[in-house]
């Protein structure tokens, strides 16, 4: 049993004392930033990246992964208690979750959310373990040609399936690719777009870029909105749900998990899309849809399960093929590269301890989250009482110190400042910055594989079509782009995204 051996290897890695500790730190930080609205997992992971440098590769990835799925748990706490989504993925939980809280059932809602997340997390871990093996076998056949096509597919699919205008997102990918080209060209040694700045010769560091675009840009835009008044009035009781509640919630959990697992694997998926789809599904299946919006327990269980399952299965493309499904996974790629690990299809065979350790740690982490969330709920509630006027200067400070600390370089702080201004500009003109980060991280690999493929084929572009795997991958790209042009899909996509925004 290959799978069994792999999982055992993973568990033994995840249960090492060091890694258990890192996993706990990760999920604690994740829950904290999940609970706090106004700071998301992307700037947090960017901020912590520099400090994972000294850790072992599995330890670093286990901690960063914990932040991501921990944030999904924390986000729902805020959604239920304050009716403010702690994360974008918990927007739907506000609807019925907060309604339940108003009816005095906050404890039940929180418990159901946590149980649904735990159930989904467990199932998604199994999905990852099962799917990883065939994908990695396929990946062994990859050369530079296939890998280039795969990178193109990853980038295009991430753009098509994510939020926002497709044309603008494509332009952002190109912008990211261009920024990724900054630095000394590896094969010729020529300096490209460094403008004589010594710090740029190693390329643009993506940590300050991510922190500026996602962290600081967001803060500036948040400050323009009138301050929200958060009311966390009621005490949380009855954390153990009744048998009837469980019976009502369980089928929704199962459906949410399945939906989330599938949507999470798709590039551009991750944690944002699944909860909306799950909510729509539950409402459609319900005998009495009018209960939704008035505290229906399925409306909490389904989306919560879906967002957790999606958050976890979005690791599949990363762990098996080295392709990030969303901006956060792009940061994970960056973390791997900092550890000296080349992300790509060979990663599963070359780094089994890392891949399976991370997979097993997700289940361990989910167990920790269940314990952290239910009994310690009071702690998280008290965190919600920190006003934003105190919170944001602290985030600004930590971003500054973090960027400065990466390479002890003040240049990075200036770079972050510039990116903050640009990030604010992007928010103002309604452009999604995530594709830029994908392009920036994948740019160097895209160029290298393109170059190698062209060298092999003697400059013949048809090589991408004459190799079967590559041709199929590019065929999917073409289908995706064609499908976008078809008017019905265009309309449906617009409707689906409008509903979710």
């Amino acid at each position, binding site marked *: 049993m290959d799978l069994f051996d792999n999982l055992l290897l993973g568990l033994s890695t995840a249960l090492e004392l060091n890694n258990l500790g890192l996993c706990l730190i990760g999920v604690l930080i994740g829950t904290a930033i999940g609970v706090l609205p106004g700071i998301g997992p992307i700037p947090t992971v960017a901020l912590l990246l520099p400090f994972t440098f000294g850790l072992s590769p599995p330890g670093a990835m286990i901690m960063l992964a914990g932040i991501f799925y921990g944030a999904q748990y924390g986000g729902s706490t805020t959604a239920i208690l304050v009716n403010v989504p702690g994360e974008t993925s918990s927007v739907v939980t506000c609807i019925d979750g907060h309604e339940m809280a108003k009816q005095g059932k906050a404890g039940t809602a929180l418990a159901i959310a946590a149980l649904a997340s735990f159930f989904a997390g467990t199932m998604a871990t199994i999905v990852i373990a099962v799917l990883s093996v065939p994908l990695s076998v396929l990946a062994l056949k990859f050369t530079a040609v296939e890998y280039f096509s795969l990178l193109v597919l990853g980038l295009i699919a991430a753009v098509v399936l994510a939020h926002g205008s497709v044309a603008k997102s494509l*332009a952002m990918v190109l912008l990211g690719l261009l920024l990724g080209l900054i630095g000394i060209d590896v094969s010729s040694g020529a300096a490209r777009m460094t403008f004589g700045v010594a710090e740029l010769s190693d390329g643009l560091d993506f940590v300050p870029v991510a922190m500026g675009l996602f962290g600081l840009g967001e803060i500036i835009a948040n400050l323009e909105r009138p301050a929200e008044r958060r009311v966390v009035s009621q005490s949380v009781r009855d954390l153990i749900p009744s048998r009837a509640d469980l019976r009502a919630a369980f089928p929704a959990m199962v459906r949410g998990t399945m939906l989330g697992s599938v949507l999470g694997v798709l590039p551009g998926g991750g944690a944002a899309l699944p909860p909306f789809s799950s909510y729509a599904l539950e409402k459609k299946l319900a005998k009495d849809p009018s209960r939704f919006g008035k505290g229906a327990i399925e409306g909490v269980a389904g989306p919560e399960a879906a967002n957790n399952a999606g958050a976890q299965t979005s690791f599949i493309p990363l762990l098996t093929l080295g392709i990030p499904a969303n901006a956060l996974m792009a940061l994970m790629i960056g973390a791997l590269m900092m550890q000296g690990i080349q992300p790509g299809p060979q990663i599963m065979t070359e780094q089994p301890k890392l891949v399976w350790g991370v997979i097993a740690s997700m289940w361990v982490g989910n167990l920790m989250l269940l314990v952290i969330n239910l009994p310690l709920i009071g702690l998280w509630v008290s965190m919600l009482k920190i006003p934003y006027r*105190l919170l944001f200067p602290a985030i600004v400070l930590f971003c500054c110190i973090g960027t400065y600390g990466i390479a002890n370089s003040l240049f990075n702080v200036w770079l*972050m400042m510039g990116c903050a201004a640009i990030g604010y500009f992007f928010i103002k003109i309604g452009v999604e910055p995530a594709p830029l980060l994908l392009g920036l991280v994948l740019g160097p690999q895209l160029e290298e594989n393109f170059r190698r493929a062209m060298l092999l084929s003697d400059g013949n572009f048809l090589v991408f079509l004459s190799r079967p795997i590559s041709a199929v991958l590019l065929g999917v790209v073409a289908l995706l782009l064609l499908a976008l042009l078809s008017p019905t899909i265009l309309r449906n996509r617009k409707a689906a995204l409008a509903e979710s925004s």
Partner: protein
Amino acid sequence: MQSPVTRSGIDWRDLLFGLFLVAVAAGALIATHKLNVGSAADMGAGYMPRAVSLGLLAFGLFFCVRGVRRAGLAQAVQAIEPVQLRPLLAVLAAVGLFALTADRLGLAIASVVTVVLASLATREGRLRETVPFALLLSGAAVLLFIKVLALPVPVWPR
């Protein structure tokens, strides 16, 4: 969130994004014009920058044209919400101030001034509250980043 709708035919969101892209692409083309482009089989350092910049330029022009020519379309054009200078300038200045002071004055002092300046971004801040808070954060930052995480940053002026 629904933004106000204007009736002037120009979609400023598209136009500004387009102009931004054109500017970046032009800058990149100028910065890399001396690099050897080579051929597809033997790419020089300038091949990819040239290809990507040209793509970017095309996108930029497309958005410029689309932004200006929205007039004839039935679609409502979303206006950009007015820019508020206070949060923008305060946050950017706080980061800049950190960059200027961290090396010379050390992390302890740089943290305090950064936090105080950043909290000016909102009118809600009161100095009576922010100053003690900044001192507290500064202490925490020194402990966390220098003592625990061992960042090579000076604590005090040198």
